[in-house]
């Protein structure tokens, strides 16, 4: 297999030629929110470590966490967690072999998008 000649073969339809669809968009967003959450988690655990360590360290970490930057990260993370939560539940539903027809899958996609924003606002009001 070492010297296989590379022939100019046609490529199969690639991602960029597809029309953007709600189903693919919500699927990609699941991955982005899930992996992006590491930023908020690291900030939260660092803040907890500071609380466990000393007054001075906590003062510094708390200043970062309650600054506009910290509030932005945590608000974005809160939405990301709720989006990933709903999209994850949708995946469990898909795994059971249900909701895979296009009208239902699109409705579930809208449910994830609208639901995540609603739950974020609800959480912010509660805490």
């Amino acid at each position, binding site marked *: 297999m070492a010297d296989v000649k590379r022939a100019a073969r046609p490529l199969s339809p690639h991602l960029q030629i597809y029309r953007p669809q709600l189903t693919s968009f919500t699927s990609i967003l699941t991955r982005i929110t899930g*992996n992006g959450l*590491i930023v908020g988690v690291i900030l939260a655990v660092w803040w*907890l*470590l500071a*609380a466990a360590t000393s007054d001075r360290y906590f003062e510094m970490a708390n200043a970062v966490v*309650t600054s506009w930057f910290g509030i932005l990260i945590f608000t974005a993370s809160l939405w990301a967690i709720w989006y990933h939560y709903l999209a994850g539940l949708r995946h*469990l539903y898909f795994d059971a072999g249900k909701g895979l027809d296009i009208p239902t899958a699109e409705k579930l996609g809208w449910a994830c998008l609208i639901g995540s924003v609603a739950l974020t606002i609800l959480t912010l009001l509660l*805490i």
Partner: protein
Amino acid sequence: MRYLTDRKRAMGKGAAGTGTETHWYMTVSAVALAFMIPTWLYVFGSALGGTRAEVVAIFARPFPALLTALVIFVGMRHFAKGATTLIEDYAHGTTRKALIILAISISYAVIATGFYALIRIAI
């Protein structure tokens, strides 16, 4: 003497030899997190913005401490496997190996830091 045929021993294990282990782990941890996250968000959100004494008082209680420990552990293992899948889709060769090792290391570092903080608050 082997009683199972070669085919029977290989079935369901796939190319990696571990079958659907990752998918099943993600399913189990997703269900666990689905039960824990709403309550944990409330606990963490209530602690956020408080003074150090208030924060320590919250996480010194058994329920918030245990819930936080579980959320960090299960969440970070869920992250490590999810990030590995992401990396496997886009990176190849040595870059892929290095990034996967990095993702797994970050997950364990966060677990260790979280546990250390919780234990230090508890004692």
